[in-house]
Structures are given as structure tokens and as C-alpha cells.
């Protein structure tokens, strides 16, 4: 039997999280190195379209559990379904997004299957000799990288943050098989119930923004983010922040970029007053173009910046904002 490389497809309310497709792209590379197959797991209610979409992103086969008990995510019900499928089909590798859902689920599954799990992986490859999965992740706040193996237990499990791997191309002509499976769990057996949901007023789409304008301690205070927000909005981007200023309470945690925050890979990342501690860099170093503004010429951020500007951000940004406004007025 061919080794199976599995991807858990995360979906909520009929919408798949793009990290699932990013993982299918990586799963394809791993499956090729193993002469194996790429398969996806889709759980939820009314998720057939998502199962089909998984095929267009490279799944050769999709195991689908479509059940009203899976209407919204719960650890109990989703873990039950995934564990059941793993026990039945014995995958070689299981990848999940390092999202709230994926991380919640992964720890439960790995424990039930008594296997190893590596969180927040930034690199995945197959050892050409042993055919084991080499999982690389930052450790100690991103100060070092560690590659981890799980040689004697299966599946080899990893969670991967959104935007770590590129989105593969979608191919509508690709053919694949959808295999329907039963959950085998009824609502009255489930202990946790959702009794309400308060949607976020504004969802911060930092991970998928094309432009991120980030601020650090060099802003001098929380009011500095007004300037960054203005610049970000002019470029249809989002505001980001370093851990230091989030810890200082200048801005919400959901804006934090780095090892303990979000991973971003925008077309342009503008780091303003950020020294660039390694724990920040691991969350943004895959950006296409990095522009850094900092008064300290020795700031580590300059080691990875494509365009490093040594100077006061309060001198540079207001003029930049004016220049962009001028550019935009020509366009109209």
C-alpha cells in the first residue's frame, strides 16, 4: 500500500481556511518523495463543495464526514472523527494548520494515537535515506531552529502556521475520489455545547494582507500606530506589531507578528522602529520585500531588510504618506 500523506482541511461555515490548501501543496512534494498519495480529511456539515475544492488543490482522495453533529467545531466531535479515520486508514503523515482549531485538535489526536506531534513547523522534508519526515521549527523564542523526527510512531504529525508555505495553484480539471465516512457519534453523547457566539467586529486579516506596516518600540508610544494605520490603509494593508509593544499594551495581541504571534508573507513588509529580535524575524522573513526604518544602524532588522533606512520614522513616514497620496491623486 502506498504511504498516505494526509491534510486536515479546516473549514468553518462552509468556508475552508487557506492554510489547508497551502498544506496540500506541501503534501504533494512529500508524497512525491515517498511515492505516496495525497489525501484530505473534510469534516463538517454540508461540506461536499469543500471536499471537491480539496481535489482541485491536489488531494487524490478525500475522506469526508458530513454530519449535523459537526455543524460547528468542537474538540470532542472533530477529534473523534479524525482519530477514527486515522485508526482505519493508518496515514504516514498528518498535517494540520497551526490555527486555533488545528492546535486544539492536533494535541488530542496525537495523544489518542500515542504518536509524536511537532507544533508550528516552518520546514518539512523527507529524509532521502530513512524516508522519515524531518520537521523543522523555531525553539526558544526563535533563537534557534530544531529539526525533529518521529522515527518509530505513525502518523508523523505537524501543525503548520498559515502563510508558512505558498498557496499551490488550483486546477479545476483535476480528478479525485470522495470517500464518505460515518462519524458514529450522536449529539446527546457530546458534553460541550455552544450556547452563543460573538463575532469579531473587525477581523484582522494580517496573515493574508499584501502589505503589512509594523511598529515596534521605536514608535515611542501607542499613538504612533495612528501613523502606521494611515500608511497601511493607503496601501490596502494591515498594521502589525512587535511582541515588545503588544506586551507593553500599546496594541492588541492579534496584531503581533513573530514566533508567538502571526506569520506573514506579504508582498511588502514595512518594519517601523522594530529592532528585529529573532522571534519577530521568524514571523516575517518570508515577506517578498522588507523595508525597515530604524534609528539604530546596528538593529538586527537591517540584516534581513531589502531596503534599510537608518533614520527617524517620524521624519520619513509623514513624507512618505504625502508622496503616496500624491501618487494616488495622479491615478484618478
Amino acid at each position, binding site marked *: 500500500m502506498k504511504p498516505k500523506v494526509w491534510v486536515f482541511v479546516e473549514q468553518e461555515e462552509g468556508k475552508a481556511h487557506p492554510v489547508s490548501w497551502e498544506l496540500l501543496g506541501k503534501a504533494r512534494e512529500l508524497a512525491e518523495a515517498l511515492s505516496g498519495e495525497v489525501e484530505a480529511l473534510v469534516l463538517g456539515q454540508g461540506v461536499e463543495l469543500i471536499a471537491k475544492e480539496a481535489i482541485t488543490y491536489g488531494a487524490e482522495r478525500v475522506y469526508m464526514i458530513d454530519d449535523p453533529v459537526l455543524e460547528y467545531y468542537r474538540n470532542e466531535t472533530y477529534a473523534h472523527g479524525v482519530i477514527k479515520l486515522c485508526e482505519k486508514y493508518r496515514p504516514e503523515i498528518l498535517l494540520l494548520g497551526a490555527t486555533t482549531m488545528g492546535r486544539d485538535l492536533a494535541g488530542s489526536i496525537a495523544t489518542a494515537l500515542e504518536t509524536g506531534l511537532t507544533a508550528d513547523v516552518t520546514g518539512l522534508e523527507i529524509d532521502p535515506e530513512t524516508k522519515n519526515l524531518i520537521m523543522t521549527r523555531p525553539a526558544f523564542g526563535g533563537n534557534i531552529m530544531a529539526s525533529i523526527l518521529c522515527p518509530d510512531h505513525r502518523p508523523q504529525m505537524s501543525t503548520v502556521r498559515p502563510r508558512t508555505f505558498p498557496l499551490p495553484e488550483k486546477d479545476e480539471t483535476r480528478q479525485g475520489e470522495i470517500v464518505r465516512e460515518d462519524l458514529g457519534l450522536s449529539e446527546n453523547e457530546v458534553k460541550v455545547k455552544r450556547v452563543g457566539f460573538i463575532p469579531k467586529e473587525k477581523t484582522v486579516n494580517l496573515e493574508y494582507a499584501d502589505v503589512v506596516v509594523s511598529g515596534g518600540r521605536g514608535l515611542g508610544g501607542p499613538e504612533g500606530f495612528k501613523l502606521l494605520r494611515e500608511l497601511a490603509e493607503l496601501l490596502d494593508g494591515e498594521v502589525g506589531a512587535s511582541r515588545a509593544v503588544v506586551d507593553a499594551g500599546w496594541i492588541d495581541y492579534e496584531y503581533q507578528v513573530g514566533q508567538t504571534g502571526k506569520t506573514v508573507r506579504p508582498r511588502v513588509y514595512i518594519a517601523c522602529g522594530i529592532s528585529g529580535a529573532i522571534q519577530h524575524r521568524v514571523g516575517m522573513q518570508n515577506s517578498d520585500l522588507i*523595508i525597515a526604518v530604524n534609528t539604530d544602524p546596528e538593529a538586527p532588522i537591517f540584516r534581513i531588510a531589502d*531596503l*534599510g533606512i537608518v*533614520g527617524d520614522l517620524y521624519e520619513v513616514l509623514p513624507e512618505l504618506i504625502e508622496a503616496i497620496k500624491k501618487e494616488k491623486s495622479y491615478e484618478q
Partner: protein
Amino acid sequence: MNILVSIKQVPDTTNIRINPETGTLVREGVPSIINPYDASALALASKLKRRYGAKITVITMGPPQAEAALKEAVEYGADRIILLSDRKFAGADTLATSYTLAETIKYLAGEAPFDLLLFGKQAIDGDTAQVGPGVARRLGVPLITYVVKVEKLDTETREIVVHRKTERGIEILKAPLPVLITCDREVGEPPFSPLSELIRAAKSKPEVFSAENPVPLERAKLGLKGSPTRVHRVFTPELKSPGERIFVSEAGVSTVVEKIITALKEKGVL
């Protein structure tokens, strides 16, 4: 109410430095702290104790120095502190850790069952967020992760209502006790401990559990031996080669701004 809190002593990762010559971690002088999310779990336990009355048991697995974290937990109102310390626990990954903690909790629950099991959402040294879910699975209790608030705790009907933070908003979840909750930082603020509590903390001494006593643990499931994952290689991350660097003091603001505008246009964002 019987509450268990599981904590971890961690190096303050914001203070970790790398030796640039050897590429290794400089651990000397790095202070150890209670993992901040575990401190939030302790703060929640403390709040619930003041409101409903509770007995708080705090456990940690670690070297003998982890005793300091447990003594600090007493300032939060811990009534019983237990240190799981044994060379056989060394090198444990999250699977072996969850086994060790879960077996200990089962043993303690034999004396008096727990209503609530509190963990931090993750530890800042590893950021795995796996141990809480693993322990819940081993104990067979419902798991609710990323909790930011306890809205209601009904000791009569034995039900809890909590707020759980996701990327899309706040889920309000109801569960019967016992339940295992992993805590985010908003869940509780450290209490102002009265002097008597601080004195009690300073004088406290944890019970130390080994791999055999009082809970006989399966040797093959402990520490490095019981860990399916292996560290294959450790290295310092590669840096990409730096690009152009301009000093505003030399080039002037308008040249710098022009450069940025050109770069933004090249990337198609302007």
C-alpha cells in the same frame, strides 16, 4: 470545589541570548518564571476560590529548582503543591509529559475528584499548546482551549459557561464538570496577596513525587524513552543577505521616500 492547576517553570525567553561564536543558547543569568499563561490559570483559580470557596492543588514537572514556581503559586492561594521531579522524567516531549501529569492527576483525584483542571494555553518556551489537550484526552474529560473568561460556574448543577477566543470571535460554551480548560491571559489578574499569604508561601515546601512514589509510573512511557519525537539537529537560523542600506542623514528624506515609492511600485502595491 476542587481545582487542579498545572504549571511550568520556564526561562524568560525575552531574555535569551545566543552566543554569536558558538551559536548556542546562553542560559546563565536567564531568570526562571512561571509560564505567564499558567500564571493566568493560577489567577483564575484564585478568583474562583475567593468567590465559591475551593481547594487548589498545583502540580509541576521539572527539576528541583521548579520548587520556586510552586512556592509562588502559594501566593495565589494554592493549598497543596506537588513537584514531579525525577531524572527519569528528563527529555520528555509532550506525549510523555501528558502521561506523567495525567497519571498523577488520576492518583490525586482518587483522594478527592477534581471539578476543574486548569492549564495555560501554551508555554512560552515551547509554544506547543499540546500538554493540556493531551491530559484531557488521557483523563477522558471535555477540553476547552483558549478560554478568556469564565462567565458562570454553577456548583449546584455542576455546569460551567466559558468564553473561548478564536480567530473569528468569541464562542460561548457550556460544559458539565469536570472539564479541562486552557487559559489565555485575559482570564484572570494576579491577586494582591495579603502578607499572611506571602509568609505562608515563603515557608511552604512542596511534596515531591518521583517516578515510583507515590504513583508507580510505567518506565517506558517516561522522559526521553517515552517520547516519540527526537531532536535531530539544532542550528541557528540562516539569514538572507541584507539589501541596500541608506542613511537619512546622508541621503535626505526626499531621496529615501522616492526609493520607497519605487520599491512599492515594483511590487505592485502602489
